[in-house]
């Protein structure tokens, strides 16, 4: 089994807010991230797929295909977007790094037909990242 990781970057804004909480609870739990005008990050996505090496091509996955799927399913959807307002799942779910990693996993799981997903790692900043390995 070989693991291959492809990295890409996207920039987006978000804010954290749960309409079931009072304004005070929202401010207390989410702090500065509750600013309704949003704030932004340069996110880095590391997508790890796994599989056996194809003996003819020497590849575990054709990187051109992987890049095209990442562009279509993730970057076109999230890059330079306000996640709460422009990405359908974040109309209801809070676009935390955890939920962004899960959302990317789900988007890729249903479309990635060229390799098996292993891990989605999303960096919100160089000092904060989340790993998601699917349902465990």
């Amino acid at each position: 089994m070989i693991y291959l990781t492809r990295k890409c970057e996207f920039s987006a804004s978000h804010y954290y807010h749960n309409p079931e909480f009072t304004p005070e609870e929202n401010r207390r739990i989410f702090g500065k991230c509750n600013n309704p005008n949003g704030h932004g990050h340069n996110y880095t996505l590391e997508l790890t797929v796994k599989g056996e090496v194809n003996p003819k091509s020497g590849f575990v996955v054709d990187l051109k295909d992987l890049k095209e799927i990442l562009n279509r399913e993730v970057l076109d959807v999230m890059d330079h977007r306000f996640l709460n307002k422009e990405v359908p799942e974040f109309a209801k779910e809070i676009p935390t790094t955890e939920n962004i990693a899960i959302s990317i996993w789900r988007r890729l799981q249903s479309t990635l037909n060229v390799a098996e997903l292993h891990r989605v790692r999303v960096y919100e900043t160089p000092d904060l990242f989340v790993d998601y390995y699917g349902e465990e």
Partner: protein
Amino acid sequence: MKAYLTKRYRFSASHRLHNEEFSNEQNRATYGKCNNPHGHGHNYALEVTVSGEVDPRTGMVYDLGALDSAVERSVIERFGHENLNCVRDFAELVPTSENLAKKIFEILKRELASVALDRVKLDETSQNSFEYAGGSELRY
């Protein structure tokens, strides 16, 4: 939905690698430059990974503010800008980064009672790093 959250912290400290049970020659042979009696320092980087179900109300595995304050209080204040050989934890333990990583894991395991601590990773320099998962295999 279980997710793994990692936060990176930094602290600086000095240490000297020396074992009283070794002869001077053995200490020099084992620890090389790190045996310099005056000690030397590093800028350490510490990654702390916790895991759990994502809380549907907050979208979070754990409160980052609580994680930051636990690490700050129990690790950074304890080891940051200290001579590790003079810290109680290393009174009878050589302050290698292996031992420091294990010690930090044990401290955080006690401090972070309400969340699963998965691993700590300690970068001693940009070229040496040490990971400890409480004796478990690392989750790749």
